C-alpha cells in the first residue's frame, strides 16, 4: 500500500511535466495530474493492470486530457495568457531553433502526434512503452513521430526533407 504510494510519488514530476506540455497551462496541468492521481489511488486494488505503474498513470492522464479537450472544444478553449508567445523573428543562424517558434509549432500538431512526440522527446520513454501507453502498434507510433518531426521542421523554417536513400 505505502509502497504503491511511494512509487506513485516518484512519477508525479514526470506527470506534471507532461501535463504542462500538453495543456500549456500550469493550473490546468496540475488539475489534470490531481485527477489522475485520485483515480489511480482510488482504483489501485481493483483496476490496476499488470505492467509498469508509470505507463498506467500516463494512460490515465492522457484519457483525462482527451476528455477535457473534447468538452472544452464544446465550451470554447481556455488559454493561459502566459502560453501566448510574442511573435518571434526567424532564427538567426541556420540550424538553431527558436524556442518560441518551436512552442508554437508543437501547438499546431494534431493531438495524437503531440502526445506521441512528447512521450519520446520530453519523457524519454522507449518506443514500446509509449506505444503501450497510447494503445497503438509500434509502427503507428513511429509514423506519428515521423510526421510530427516533419511538421515541426516545416514550421520552424528549417530546410525540408534532405533526400534519404535506403542503403544496405
Amino acid at each position, binding site marked *: 500500500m505505502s509502497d504503491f504510494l511511494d512509487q506513485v510519488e516518484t512519477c508525479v514530476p514526470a506527470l506534471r511535466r507532461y501535463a504542462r506540455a500538453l495543456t500549456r497551462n500550469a493550473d490546468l496541468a496540475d488539475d489534470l495530474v*490531481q485527477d489522475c492521481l485520485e483515480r489511480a489511488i482510488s482504483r489501485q486494488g481493483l483496476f490496476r493492470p499488470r505492467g509498469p505503474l508509470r505507463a498506467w498513470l500516463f494512460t490515465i492522464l492522457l484519457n483525462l486530457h482527451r476528455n477535457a479537450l473534447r468538452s472544452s472544444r464544446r465550451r470554447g478553449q481556455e488559454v493561459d495568457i502566459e502560453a501566448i508567445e510574442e511573435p518571434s523573428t526567424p532564427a538567426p543562424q541556420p540550424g538553431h531553433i527558436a*524556442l518560441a517558434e518551436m512552442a508554437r509549432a508543437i501547438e499546431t500538431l494534431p493531438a495524437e502526434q503531440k502526445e506521441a512526440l512528447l512521450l519520446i522527446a520530453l519523457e524519454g520513454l522507449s518506443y514500446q512503452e509509449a506505444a503501450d501507453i497510447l494503445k497503438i502498434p509500434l509502427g503507428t507510433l513511429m509514423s506519428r513521430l515521423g510526421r510530427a518531426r516533419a511538421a515541426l521542421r516545416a514550421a520552424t523554417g528549417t530546410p525540408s526533407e534532405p533526400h534519404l536513400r535506403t542503403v544496405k
Partner: protein
Amino acid sequence: MSEINRDTLMAYADGQLDNAGRQHVDAYLTANPDTAAEIALMQRQSDAIRTLFAPAGAEPVPARLKPRRIAAEQSRHRRGAVGWAAAAVILLGVGLGAGWFLRPVLDSRPPSATLIADAINAHTVYVAENRHAVEVGGEDSEHLTSWLSNRLETQLGMPNLDAEGFSLVGGRLLPGEPELGGRAAQLMYESADKERVTIYVTAALPDGQPAYEFTRYDGAEAFYWANERITCTVVGTLPEERMKALSRAVYTQLTEGDDGRERYRS
C-alpha cells in the same frame, strides 16, 4: 547488416537503439553528412522540447499532488460516507415512523385546501410577471382552449369576463398535486387598471362531489368550487364584492352544459 531506413535513423536520434545498432548507424553517418545533418536536426528538436518543458518537472510538487495526502483524504471521505449513510438510514427510519403515526393528522387536510393553496401560490407567482405572465396569449384563445382541454382531459372553455371589465391575458399549464390529477391550468385576466385575477382549473377530484368554498388567505380572496368534471379556483385581490361577481360569472360559464349543475349560490 540490417537495412538503415528512416525508422532506424529516427530511433537512433531518439536514443532507442542498442549498442550494435548505434555503431552501425554511426558508421553510416560518417559516410553520409546529409543524413547526419538531418539526425542532428531531430536531436535539436528534442533538445528544444526538453528546454521548453522539462523545468515543469523540477518545480516543487504542491501539497495537493502528494499521493499520501490524496490517499488519506480518500479514506476519510470513505469513512465519512459510511457515517452519512448510517445517519441517513436512521433518519429515514425516524421519518417513516413519524409519518405513519402522523398519518391521520396529515390526511385530515381536504383536497380542496391543497388546491386552493396551490391556486393562490400560482396566482402570487405569475401575476407579478410582466413579459412571461402566461405561456400562451389570450389572442389565440382557440388554441389555448384545445391545448388546455387536452392536457386536463376535460372540456375547458375560456370564460368571457368582458362584462366585469376583465379580458383574457392567456394561460399556462402547471404541474399539480400528483394524487389530484398531476396537472393544472391557470388562466389570467386583466382589467384596464391592470388588476389581475387568475383561474386555476384541474380535472375533477376522484369523488367528483360538488363543493363550494370562499376563503381569504394571505391577502388574496379565493373562490373554490368543484363538480364531477373540474375543480376551479378563482383567485384575486379585489374587494370581496367584485371577487364574488367575477366568480359567479366564471362559474356560470364553466358549468354551462354540465348535466345536473347546481345553481351558483352566494
